[in-house]
């Protein structure tokens, strides 16, 4: 294999004495999809930032087409044919697709130096056709879906004549169908000899699309190989440094009485006639595509949104929940999907975050009691194994997985009887994921009723006692653990109901 387009050798990067990368080797060949795998903090982003010229390595060499090169700035790296697909950060929502694609490298008319919009428009159309994208060059980016924006970013990379395209968690906000489409485009780019660096937490994706992989752990190079010659277990072992006996440690919990009963809950234009029962100690999985209305149902039950009609019963009694505070009084807790916006208050510290919903309980009358807050934080922080320099550390300085643990600790500290978890493992590393799964099982064993919303099928199948599937605001199927399989669930999720 000599057709290496990029070779990085012995890359080291120290930040204030911390070794973010410690002698990493990384080779990418033309026409391959190369998965860069590792937990959060393993050094993937740092490596990519060195490759795109954002960071300068402390030591090591980068070889591009057999010649040593240096990327002192992102522009130099881009000129050399390396493009990273960012998500929304670099898009200009009020500008057109064409303007976004040619931002920074506008085509000028050679004779008068003015911008040549017609040429840019034609080129944009060619790129869009190539990506089978049914949008017009002058559509504003804000009117596009997330998936379409990704495609525009890819078009931009192609317009720059990229030979290496870096995709960092490209599927995190996409629906199943959009992911399929992305794969198709990736395969197309591959067949044209482009090299694609694919960064993902999801192993199913890596095995689906990648040809080759490199694993990093704690800033160190762990290994590489072809995807065809490796198993999930082995990769997991490389990633976390030990073997994971069970990703989904489902402890069989005794199921008790019905604790939550939802009847014909509806919200016009969002969801309709949602009915289900939840038992003590049960883990009830909610599966569906993005936009199926699962979060909306749960937020309505939790009092964040208002319902149009329908009833909610707790312990057999009809309840009226007007706001989250009411919901908490009935023993409900809702771990939201977006931990950075809905879950944690990033600019506040761990103690303040964990005690926020129970601040009335930790205080003396209206006066704060910081020692009491500290004790509770210490209790739950240690229980959930939050890794931090202290409970006064700001949440924004924690890794994604630890931020999620803070939000989890915050809700478990409310001592809920019914815990609704909305995508509790989204975007977190595999070790934290396993920890979170462990807690879910443990909580269920203690008799807490759990609703688990997840878009990851293995998680739903691995964790739930029962599964409910939603599609466009209605429940399309209910399965028991025994009766569920991925095929049936997917069918119900995309709306083709088969009894």
């Amino acid at each position, binding site marked *: 294999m000599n057709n290496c387009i990029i070779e990085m050798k012995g890359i080291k990067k120290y930040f204030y004495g911390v070794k973010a990368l410690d002698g990493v080797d990384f080779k990418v060949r033309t026409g391959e999809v190369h998965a860069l795998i590792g937990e959060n903090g393993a050094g993937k982003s740092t490596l990519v930032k060195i490759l795109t010229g954002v960071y300068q390595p402390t030591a090591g060499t980068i070889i591009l087409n057999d010649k040593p090169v240096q990327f002192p700035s992102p522009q130099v790296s881009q000129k050399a044919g390396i493009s990273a697909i960012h998500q929304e950060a670099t898009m200009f929502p009020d500008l057109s697709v064409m303007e976004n694609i040619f931002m920074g490298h506008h085509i000028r008319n050679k004779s008068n130096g003015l911008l040549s919009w017609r040429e840019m428009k034609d080129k944009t159309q060619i790129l869009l056709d190539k990506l089978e994208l049914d949008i017009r060059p002058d559509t504003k980016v804000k009117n596009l879906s997330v998936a379409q924006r990704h495609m525009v970013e890819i078009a931009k990379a192609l317009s720059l004549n990229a030979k290496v395209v870096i995709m960092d968690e490209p599927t995190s906000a996409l629906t199943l169908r959009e992911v399929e489409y992305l794969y198709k485009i990736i395969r197309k780019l591959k067949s044209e000899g482009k090299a694609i660096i694919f960064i993902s937490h999801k192993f199913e994706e890596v095995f689906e699309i990648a040809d080759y992989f490199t694993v990093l752990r704690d800033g160190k190079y762990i290994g590489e190989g072809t995807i065809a010659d490796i198993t999930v277990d082995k990769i997991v072992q490389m990633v976390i440094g030990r073997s994971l006996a069970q990703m989904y440690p489902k402890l069989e919990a005794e199921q008790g009485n019905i604790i939550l009963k939802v009847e014909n809950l509806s919200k016009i234009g969002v969801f309709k006639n949602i009915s289900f029962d939840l038992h003590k100690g049960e883990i009830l999985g909610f599966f569906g595509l993005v936009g199926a209305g699962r979060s909306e149902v749960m937020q309505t039950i939790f009092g964040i949104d208002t319902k149009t009609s329908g009833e909610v019963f707790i312990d057999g009694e009809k309840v009226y929940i007007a706001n989250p505070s009411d919901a908490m009084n009935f023993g409900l807790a809702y771990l939201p999907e977006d931990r950075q916006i809905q879950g944690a208050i990033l600019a506040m510290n761990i103690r303040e975050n964990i005690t926020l919903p129970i601040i009335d309980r930790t*205080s003396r009358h209206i006066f704060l009691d910081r020692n009491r807050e500290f004790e509770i934080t210490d209790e739950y922080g240690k229980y959930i194994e939050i890794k931090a320099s202290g409970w006064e550390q700001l949440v924004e300085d924690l890794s994604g997985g630890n931020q999620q643990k803070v939000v989890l600790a915050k809700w478990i500290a409310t001592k809920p009887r019914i815990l609704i978890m909305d995508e509790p493992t989204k975007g977190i590393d595999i070790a934290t994921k396993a920890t979170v799964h462990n807690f879910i099982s443990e909580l269920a064993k203690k008799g807490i009723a759990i609703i688990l919303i997840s878009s990851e099928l293995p998680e739903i199948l691995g964790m739930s006692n029962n599964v409910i599937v939603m599609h466009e605001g209605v429940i399309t199927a209910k399965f028991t653990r025994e009766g569920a399989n991925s095929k049936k669930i997917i069918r119900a999720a995309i709306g083709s109901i088969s009894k």
Partner: protein
Amino acid sequence: MNKENGVLDIKKIRKISLLNIMWQWETILLFIFIMVAIINSNLSPYFLDYTNLMNTTFNFIEKAIIALPMIFVIICGDIDISVASIIALSSVFMGMASQAGVNTFGLVAIGLFSGSAAGFLNGFIITKFGIPAIAVTLGSMSLFRGIAYVILGDKAFTKYPTSFAFFGQGYIGNTMIPFELILFFILAIIFGIILHKTTMGRRVFAIGNNSTAARFSGIPVNRIRLIIFTVTGLCSGLASILLTSRIGSTRPNIAYGWELEIITTVVLGGVAITGGKGNIFGVVISIFIIGFLKFGMGLINVPGKVMNIIIGLLLILAIMLPELLKRLKPKNSFSNIKK
């Protein structure tokens, strides 16, 4: 054992933050305050005169009293630019009542009530219809001031009961300490305790940092914002009582332009205009910096327009200072790495 460790940790953290205090905003403000005092006392022999210092507080304490609730408003991520117009509105209502023969007690009640009602109206529109505070209070700023102009035209209310004069002109007992100043300190302590020591204060910071997460955590975000706007109105009404009592008359242009001075004071005091950050102590120092700076400049006959230039420069410099310090820091760290 665990518990002991916990307490130990908290002590350690407090110790570290004691060291950090050197670099904190309040320290910078305190330094500026001392500089202002030293320069002023060198420029004019009249500056460090006890009676003069006490009497000059009359010129800024009414604004300071509104600055206190404004801290809460801004920490919540909101703003209220209608406060000076609320003063005018309350003053006009008090003036009308006074002409009709209402006694001092009644005037105070009217002042406080009309202020609170105006603040409640702001808060109600903002929270009920989800309109940004800047837009709503921009509107009510014109509305309240407009009502004052319509009622008064080019006239003025000048008839107030003699006992009404105490609030804005009185001293405590036989001392030279103005009643207003004591009232301000009492309020500052109450607002300080609420902001830093109570669950309400914690919730205000939570709302300012992330109102969505605050709402998801069971905090009644809109109710708290409504309370804060109402209290801001109440304090504006109180300031209106003090000001009307002090000058003994009501004209529709009363307290004109105060809102910007109040917001300037709060921002100079270290409250982040984006919300979520700030403390009472910084704002209290900032109130006295601006007050004494103006007093000192007045003593050496600096014209009012030039004072504005100097206050503007002070605000910009003070806000730039932490940024400048931040830029100095990384350089040091980089040189550490090379070693």
